[in-house]
């Protein structure tokens, strides 16, 4: 059994797997990787099951020391990253490029170069207890993951090393994933309370360019920009709220619910981001522009089918 010593983790850095769906009726969100596509592709690079736990690193990066040899890959958005040998010598660690880390080596994840998140997938298995069937962290309520909280300096995460072979993605595949994970617009279908909004407000919503607020996190992407008016004065009865739902609270600043978002809510929903575009939410950086474009249910489902086909096609060559 090896150990990953966390030397720095300002990210936040959270243990996430593919999540714990099926508990929403208990008020437990599915959580899991905010970008399950990158988790899937990254895990398979290093020979792991697609849903295996990884370290989800956001914005401020982290430094991870290995006390025994491991294969690892960074999957998701590009960060400044390098491997430090025990000798101190450094070599760059490119996105989607599986690499060997020797005993005593370190992986440094520094500054953001594109989107907000990257997954450190280690060949083998991170030994983290499961809670409600998953190793995912839901930090708001201290559920799961590493003691229910983000990793911090001094933590030692045990891992059972896997094989020492791995593969990297071709440049074409990396480019295809990049455009999928950083689209120009987020496609949406009509929200449950769309009728509660004046037509001008709906138009305004679709014509606006919002900016991602610093207050954004896995619970939701908060948007700054033109305030959206709500037509009906009455308040809405609380109902189930899916990830991707675009809620408009009093004040008119939309929130796009994330994977840690509450399972029910009372704010009217003007739109819902399509399943194929949910992974892109994970990569939004504060200040990024956000625009919404309506699509049909059929097109939304087709987009997901295409996404899944693309991801399946990135299997490890035999």
């Amino acid at each position, binding site marked *: 059994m090896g150990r990953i010593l966390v030397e720095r983790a300002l990210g936040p850095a959270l243990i996430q797997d593919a999540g714990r*769906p099926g508990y*929403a009726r208990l*008020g437990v969100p599915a959580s899991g990787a905010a970008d399950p596509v990158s988790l899937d592709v990254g895990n398979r690079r290093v020979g792991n099951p697609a849903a295996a736990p990884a370290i989800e690193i956001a914005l401020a990066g982290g430094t991870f020391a290995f006390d025994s040899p491991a294969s690892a890959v960074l999957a998701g958005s590009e960060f400044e990253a390098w491997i430090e040998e025990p000798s101190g010598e450094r070599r760059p660690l490119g996105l989607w490029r599986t690499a060997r880390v020797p005993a005593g080596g370190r992986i440094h994840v520094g500054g953001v170069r594109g989107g907000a998140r990257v997954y450190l997938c280690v060949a083998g298995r991170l030994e983290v207890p499961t809670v409600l069937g998953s190793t995912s962290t839901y930090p708001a309520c201290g559920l799961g993951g590493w003691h229910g909280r983000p990793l911090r300096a001094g933590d030692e995460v045990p891992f059972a090393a896997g094989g020492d072979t791995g593969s990297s993605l071709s440049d074409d595949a990396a480019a295809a994933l990049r455009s999928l994970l950083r689209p120009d617009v987020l496609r949406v279908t009509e929200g449950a309370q769309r009728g509660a909004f004046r037509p001008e407000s709906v138009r305004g919503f679709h014509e606006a360019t919002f900016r991602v607020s610093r207050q954004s996190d896995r619970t939701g992407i908060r948007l700054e920009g033109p305030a959206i008016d709500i037509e009906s004065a009455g308040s809405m*009865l*609380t109902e189930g709220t*899916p990830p991707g739902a675009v809620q408009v609270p009093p004040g008119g600043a939309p929130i796009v619910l994330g994977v840690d978002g509450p*399972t029910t809510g009372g704010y009217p929903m003007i739109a819902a981001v399509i399943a194929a575009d949910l992974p892109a939410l994970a990569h939004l950086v504060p200040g990024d522009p956000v625009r919404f474009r309506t699509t049909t*249910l059929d097109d939304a489902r087709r987009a997901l089918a295409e996404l899944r086909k693309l991801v399946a096609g990135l299997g490890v060559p035999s």
Partner: protein
Amino acid sequence: MHDWASDFRLRLDLGEDASGGGSARVRAAADALAEARVPGVADVVPAYRVLLVTIDPEAGDPEAVADRVRAIVRGAAGRRAAVGPVIEIPVCYQSPYSPDLDDVADRAGLTPSEVVAAHASREYRVAFLGFAPGFPYLEGLDPRLATPRLDRPRVRVPEGSVAIGGAQAGIYPFALPGGWRVVGRTPLRLFRTEVDPPALLAPGDRVRFVPIDAARFERMHAGRG
């Protein structure tokens, strides 16, 4: 107009329950769906009048799964929702566990003791769980106690806080930000991952609040492992 909340989430608005039972019709539909074990239904969230059904994108045509769900829900129209047991929740309504009790009393034109009596004398129904793991939305609050949320939500409402939000009553299972008015606190844990089921309360359960004093609260709180 369709009944999809998103591309893979079906939203069934079951309307007001004619008997005034509120969410009972939604719970009955959720029960029927659970029994039917429809392939492709990944999750079901009941609420006051809306049932949100998550459909697994890997289960083939979502419209086909949805048709099956709609048929089962239609078929459950006359079904009685299961009524759960009465769960007693000890609550300390004394300071410092009841920071908004005086406010609620003032707005209701009652004394704090009268508010406690009105709050603790009713039998509530758990309409559904939501907002946070194990958080119960309770129906049955004395209408005199309905109080709007705080203008500025608290950054942290202590775990176990018993609260009122508008005409809704609930209990915070974790320390969380929140705008509901806190009238008391329970030493009970509402959500424990080490037990199955992890939530103390289930939709359809009935709840009675039992007043306890601060000394008893502290003993019970200290004693819970």
